[in-house]
C-alpha cells in the first residue's frame, strides 16, 4: 500500500511546492524593496483583469502547453528532453517555409499545413539525439542541449542569409501572405461594436493545444503504444523482457516530444509574429520543463500549469512596466518551481508521507 493517498500525491505535493516557490519569490521581491502583495495585485489585474490581459495569458499558455506536453511525453519514457527550445525553433522554420512558399487558399488549410510542417521539423530535430541515445548510448540530455545551440546557430545563419528578403536589414523572414493569417481571439469573439481581446495575440492555435492535450492523454493511457512508453519508463529491462523494443520507444517518444515542441510554432510564428524572427521561442522550450514537472506529466496538469505560467508571464510583463521589478523575476519564479517540484521533491514528500503514516497508525490504533 502506498504511504499516501493518491490525491495527496497529485494535488497536495505540487501545491506545497508551489507555495514554497511563491514564498521565496515574495521574499526576493521584499528584499529588493517592493511589496509582494502589491506585485501580486498588479499581476492579477494585468493578466486576468481584462480580455486583453487574458488574450496574452492564453497566448503564452498555448506555447507552454505544447512545450509542457513535449517534456511530459519524454518523461513518461524516462527521458529528459531539454531540447524543446531547439525543436520549437526548428518547428518555426518549418512553419515559415510552408507559409512563405506554398500559396494557401484558406487559413484552415494553412493551419493544417503549418501544424504538420512544425511537427515534422520538430520531430526531425529530436530524432537525431534520439537515434544517438538509442543506438550509440549518447546521453540524451547532453545531445539535446547541444542541439539547442546548433539550432540557434542554424536559424541565425538562415535568417541573415537565405531566408532574409532582399534589401531588408533585419534578421527575419518576410511577412507571411495574408491567407496564412490565423484568426485571433479578437477576430473570433468580437461581436458588433464590442471588441474583445483587442490587440492580444491569442489565436486559434489555443484550441489546437487543447486538442493536443486530449490526444496526448489518449495516447498515453488508452493505446498500446502509450502503455509501452510507460512500461519502458518504469523499467526498461522489464519492458525489454516483455518484447518492447527500446530503440522503437526511444525514437517514437522523442519524436512525438519534438513534434509537440515544434508545434508551438503555429502559435508564436504563424499566429503571432506572422514571420520568423531571431529568438522567436524566447525560452518557452525551457518553461516546458517547469510546466511538465508542475503538472506531474499529466496533460490536464500540464494544461493547468501552462495557464499558471501564462499568467506569470503576462503578469510579469505588467510588473516590469509599472514597478521596478524586472521581467527576469519570472525566470526566478520558474527556477524555484523547477527546483521544488523537480529536484527537491523528496524534501516535501518524505515529511508528508510521515504525516500520513502517523495519521493512519492513529486511526488503526483507535479501531
Amino acid at each position, binding site marked *: 500500500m502506498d504511504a499516501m493517498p493518491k490525491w495527496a500525491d497529485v494535488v497536495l505535493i505540487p501545491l506545497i511546492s508551489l507555495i514554497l516557490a511563491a514564498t521565496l519569490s515574495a521574499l*526576493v521581491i521584499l528584499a*529588493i*524593496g517592493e511589496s509582494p502583495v502589491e506585485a501580486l495585485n498588479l499581476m492579477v489585474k494585468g493578466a486576468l483583469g481584462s480580455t486583453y490581459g487574458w488574450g496574452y495569458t492564453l497566448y503564452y499558455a498555448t506555447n507552454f502547453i505544447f512545450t509542457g506536453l513535449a517534456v511530459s511525453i519524454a518523461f513518461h519514457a524516462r527521458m*529528459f528532453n*531539454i531540447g524543446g527550445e531547439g525543436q520549437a525553433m526548428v518547428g518555426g522554420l518549418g512553419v515559415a517555409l510552408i507559409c512563405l512558399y506554398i500559396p494557401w487558399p484558406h487559413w484552415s488549410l494553412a493551419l493544417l499545413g503549418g501544424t504538420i510542417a512544425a511537427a515534422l521539423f520538430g520531430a526531425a530535430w529530436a530524432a537525431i539525439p534520439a537515434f*544517438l541515445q538509442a543506438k*550509440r*548510448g*549518447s*546521453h540524451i*540530455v*547532453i*545531445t539535446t*542541449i*547541444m*542541439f539547442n*545551440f*546548433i539550432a540557434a*546557430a*542554424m536559424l*541565425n*545563419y538562415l535568417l541573415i542569409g537565405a531566408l532574409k528578403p532582399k534589401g531588408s536589414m533585419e534578421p527575419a523572414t518576410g511577412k507571411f501572405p495574408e491567407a496564412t493569417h490565423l484568426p485571433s481571439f479578437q477576430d473570433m469573439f468580437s461581436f458588433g461594436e464590442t471588441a474583445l481581446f483587442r490587440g492580444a495575440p491569442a489565436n486559434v492555435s489555443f484550441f489546437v493545444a487543447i486538442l493536443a492535450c486530449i490526444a496526448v492523454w489518449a495516447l498515453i493511457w488508452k493505446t498500446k503504444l502509450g502503455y509501452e512508453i510507460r512500461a519502458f519508463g518504469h523499467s526498461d529491462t522489464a519492458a525489454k523482457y516483455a518484447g518492447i523494443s527500446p530503440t522503437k520507444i526511444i525514437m517514437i517518444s522523442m519524436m512525438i516530444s519534438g513534434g509537440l515542441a515544434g508545434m508551438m510554432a503555429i502559435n508564436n510564428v504563424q499566429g503571432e509574429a506572422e514571420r520568423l524572427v531571431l529568438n522567436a521561442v524566447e525560452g518557452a522550450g*525551457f518553461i516546458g*520543463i517547469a510546466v511538465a*514537472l508542475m503538472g506531474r506529466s499529466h496533460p490536464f496538469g500540464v494544461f493547468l500549469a501552462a495557464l499558471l505560467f501564462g499568467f506569470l508571464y503576462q503578469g510579469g510583463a505588467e510588473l516590469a512596466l509599472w514597478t*521596478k*521589478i*524586472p521581467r*527576469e*523575476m*519570472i*525566470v*526566478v*519564479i*520558474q*527556477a*524555484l518551481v*523547477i*527546483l521544488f517540484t*523537480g*529536484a*527537491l*521533491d*523528496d*524534501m516535501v514528500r*518524505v515529511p508528508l508521507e510521515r504525516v500520513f503514516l502517523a495519521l493512519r497508525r492513529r486511526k488503526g490504533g483507535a479501531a
Partner: protein
Amino acid sequence: MDLSTILQVLDSTVRLATPLLLACLAGLFSERAGIFDIGLEGKMLAAAFLSAAVAYTSGSAWVGLGAGIFASLLLSGIHGLASITFRGNQLISGVAINFLAAGLTVVVAQSWFGQGGRTPQLAGSARFEPITLPFADALREVPVLGPIYYELISGHTALVYIALLFVPLTWWVLYRTRFGLRLRAVGENPAAVDTAGISVVWLRYMAVLICGVLCGIAGAYLATALQASFVKDMSAGRGYIALAALIFAKWRPWYALYACLLFGFLQAFALRPDVIQTVFGFKVNAQLLDVLPYILTVIILAGFVGKAVPPRAGGQPYVKER
C-alpha cells in the same frame, strides 16, 4: 599572415579558454564523484555578478573574487542538497540553478545599481590587471621567442595562471592522493566506498563544493578580468561548452586543458573574420565556428571518434542499503 597576428589569436585563445578550463575542471570534480552538473553555467553567472558587484563596491578585485566564489558555493550547496541529501534528479536541479542565476543576477543587479541589470564599469584595482612576467620587457626584442614570451606567456591576469595551475593540481589530487582515489571510486561504485567505511555523502559534498569554488573563479574571471563589468547572461553558454569539453576530454584533467584550448581557439578564431579569410581564402561562417564545439561533442558522444564513457554511477543518487 605574420607572427604578431598568430600571437594575437593565440593570446585571445588563452584568455577565452581560461573560463572554460576552470568550469571544465569544476565539472570534472563533480562528475567524477557521480554528481552530474549542468548548472556550471548558472554558477559562473552568479559568481560573475557578485564578484563584479562586490569588486565595484569594495574597490578590490580579490574581495570580488571571494564574493564570486561565495555566490557559486551557495548554488553548489543547493545542488548538493537536492542531489545528495534529498536524492532528487541532478539534471533537473542543474536546470533550476541555471535559471535561478539567470533571473536573480538581473533582478538583484537592477535593484542594486539601477543600470538595467548590469554593474557599473570596473576600473583600477577593482579589476584583475595583466601581470608582466619577469624579463618580459627585456626579452621582447629577441626574435621569435621574445614576442612569444612577451605576448603569449606573459601579460595575462593572475586568474589565467591560477587556472593553468589547477590542471596539474587536479591531476595530482585525483590520481595521487587518497582523497582523489576515493572521489573517483564514489563516482564509479559508491556502494564499495560505503562498504569501506567512508562516507559517500561527505565525499560527494566535497566534490560539489570544489566544483563551486572553481566555477566561482571562472565567473569572477569573466566579469573582473576578461571584461570589466557584469552584463546580463554574460556567461553566454560557456558552462555548456565546458560540459562539452569535459566529455571531449573524457573526464580527464590534462585532456580537459587541451579540449578547452581547442574550444577557446575556435572562439578566438570566430572573433577574427579577417584572419579566417586570409587563412582559408574564403569567408568561413562565424556561426559555424561558434557551434563547432557542440557539433564536435555530439560526434564524440556518438562514439565515432573514440568512446566517451562517463563515470558509472553518475547521475544516480546513492541509497544506503537498509
